[in-house]
């Protein structure tokens, strides 16, 4: 038997892919998380109140989602409801993360695949027109930076935010700060749209070149988003069937009734399924679950996607295009929110420590994230992190097998396979630090 091993890059964390080939047939495709973070163990015994500061350190890419999920889990235990203004500030924080993450995935992780460069910073050295490509890199980084600035404004710190607290957030947003952010968002929204248009064209050209959009078999989709507009801060998880019919809707504390979890010998990350079936989380899941985005430009892109690919759409390379729609949405929604008064009431309510069990849900860029804590004597007795990347593991492996079958035959292994492996994995934008928390 031949084992092909592919190192991975332009993803968050340490992972590799192994494809096993026997007699010209792909017999297995494994996605292996090769690092182990272990937060679920080492937060045991820490004071519950510190979790919102500790858990962002699970991952510097997804820190905002962990920060907010952690605060929500503790609010569930301490039985406090944050003021509406605090919820709005938290939504802005999550929008900042969505901008930063989708821009990173689109432009830093996957755009080089579309122009045949090894990185966005080397794009000026690749074959195509250097002037144009250097421009791409600079514009991309500027668009991404808008997300960073929004996280800093709404979250205080730029990577491991601190402003969400149990019972609310530390402060509202002053008019002059909101205006400064608005000006930046408005200046860069058209830049983001142009970049996304270019990205869309590059993707169509890539499809022409490689002849496929990747694994297009139907799957279940999971997200905690809304129907008529994305909701990043909801309390309900929804599941869509492969036929586009909604199959389930449940609160985070019921997740075990719907999701099956298993561990493997070859990876430090586990895998979840929807009652034994392959499911997908992340951008494509949210877009398949949404009737509209609720903002004008994002809705235009959604129409274009639906018109071109139908609904629900299943090919995996559409994850990338869906990220672009969400990038535009996040800009528009942040502009909408920052145009309003964000100082209209107190931003937090008092709480007192309590023992018990609680769940906190947010829709992270990679899908629904749940923090589940048991608190005893004010300390964490048990912590569980239900990670979106883990929901995608079976779908990633299925898509890798499809790619393997395309490029492996009895006679030879097509060198395109290595590139295909990279494209497949990046379409899911997995986060290994989170998956092995």
């Amino acid at each position, binding site marked *: 038997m031949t084992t092909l091993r592919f190192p991975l890059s332009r993803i968050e964390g340490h992972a590799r892919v192994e494809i096993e080939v026997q007699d010209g047939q792909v017999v297995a495709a494994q996605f292996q998380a*090769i690092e182990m973070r272990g937060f679920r163990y*080492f937060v045991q*015994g820490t004071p519950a109140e*510190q979790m919102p500061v500790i858990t962002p350190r699970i991952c510097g890419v997804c820190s905002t989602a962990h920060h907010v999920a952690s605060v929500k889990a503790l609010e569930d235990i301490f039985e406090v409801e944050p003021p509406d203004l605090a919820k709005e500030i938290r939504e802005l924080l999550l929008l900042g993360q969505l901008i930063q993450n989708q821009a990173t995935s689109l432009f830093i992780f996957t755009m080089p695949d579309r122009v045949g460069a090894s990185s966005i910073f080397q794009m000026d050295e690749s074959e195509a027109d250097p002037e144009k490509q250097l421009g791409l890199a600079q514009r991309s980084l500027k668009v991404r*930076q808008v997300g960073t600035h929004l996280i800093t404004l709404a979250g205080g*710190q730029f990577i491991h935010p*601190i402003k969400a607290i149990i019972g609310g957030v*530390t402060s509202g947003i002053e008019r002059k700060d909101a205006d400064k952010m608005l000006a930046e968002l408005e200046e860069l929204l058209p830049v983001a749209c142009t970049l996304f248009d270019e990205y869309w064209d590059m993707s169509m050209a890539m499809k022409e070149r490689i002849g496929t959009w990747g694994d297009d078999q139907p799957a279940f989709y999971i997200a905690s988003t809304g129907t008529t507009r994305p909701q990043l801060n909801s309390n309900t998880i929804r599941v869509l069937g492969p036929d586009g019919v909604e199959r389930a809707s449940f609160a985070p504390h019921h997740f075990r009734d719907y999701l099956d979890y298993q561990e493997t010998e070859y990876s430090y990350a586990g895998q979840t399924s929807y009652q034994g079936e392959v499911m997908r989380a992340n951008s494509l899941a949210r877009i398949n679950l949404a009737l509209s985005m609720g903002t004008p430009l994002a809705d235009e892109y959604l129409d274009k996607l639906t018109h071109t690919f139908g609904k629900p759409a299943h090919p995996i390379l559409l994850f990338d295009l869906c990220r672009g729609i969400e990038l535009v949405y996040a800009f528009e929604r942040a502009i909408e929110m920052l145009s309003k008064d964000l100082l209209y009431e107190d931003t937090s309510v008092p*709480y007192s420590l309590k023992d018990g069990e609680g769940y906190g849900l947010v829709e992270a860029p990679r899908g629904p994230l749940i923090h589940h804590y048991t608190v005893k004597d004010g300390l964490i007795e048990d912590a569980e992190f239900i990670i979106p990347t883990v929901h995608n593991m079976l779908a990633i492996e299925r898509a890798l097998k499809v790619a393997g079958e395309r490029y492996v035959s009895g006679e030879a292994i097509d060198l395109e396979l290595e590139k295909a492996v990279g494209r497949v994995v990046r379409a899911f934008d997995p986060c290994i630090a989170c998956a092995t928390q």
Partner: protein
Amino acid sequence: MTSQKQTLPRFAVLQLSGCAGCEVALINASEWVEKYQLVYMPLVTSTHRIPADTEILLVSGGVRNDEDVYNLKRAAEIVDKVIAVGTCAISGGVANLGDRDEVRELFMAQSNRHHLPHLLPKSHPIDTFVDVDLYLPGCPPTPELFMAALTDPEGFDGSSIVCIECGRKKLKDMRPRHLLGFQQGEVLPDICLINQGYLCLGSSTRGGCRAICTRPGHPCVGCRGPSDAYIEKPSQVWFDRVQKVFERLTDIPPEEIHEALHSPQLSLFVFQFTDYMNGDRPPRPKEKIL
């Protein structure tokens, strides 16, 4: 353009076991794009080896498994200068919370999986294995600090402690009697967080971060480690200093502060930074710390 770029200094970024927050901070500091050539950084480039003529190596994350040890040693041999970036690479970081017997047992139960890197019993700072030329502490270091580390570490204009960069006023007549919970209470603007009863470590934590946590109202958790005044001394001296500041500014019983500082769980970051002076390793000289 290609030839011009190739004459720029070349640097590589090796990410060991960590959260990638340092890498994200580096991407945020995009000014280096014009001044340096990034030759290796798996998060953003598809180059799988560090080229032989690389000058600077930035290492983030702690040494958590045997593959980390191998990759670190091999990379350090290639380059002229090694910069340890972030709390995990410098002192083990947040992963040090796993350095407790009961947790280590749970952790090690995971460590023998089929053909996966073998976990070490604890997360080590990188200078356990290689010589480090410059330390850049912070969780993560700010983009400004990254730029300074790459271009002009000696010329960096940072304050000795976070307090100086914070600008909140210390009041003589506002003396809390007990520590507030880590997140509890309404934070008053412009007034020192210690006056408000928060366990803020800004009075002895290394400056240079521009007080990005304390200014919006979150107590300093000490992620940049002790200031030059304490960094070459046993961690007890640092703790005593924090204690003295609280005695001067508050009526909180000294036992309460002492307990808070010495409980490994309560003082998460202090706990991490005690590793600055751990065991038989000579102290890291302050000249090497940005």
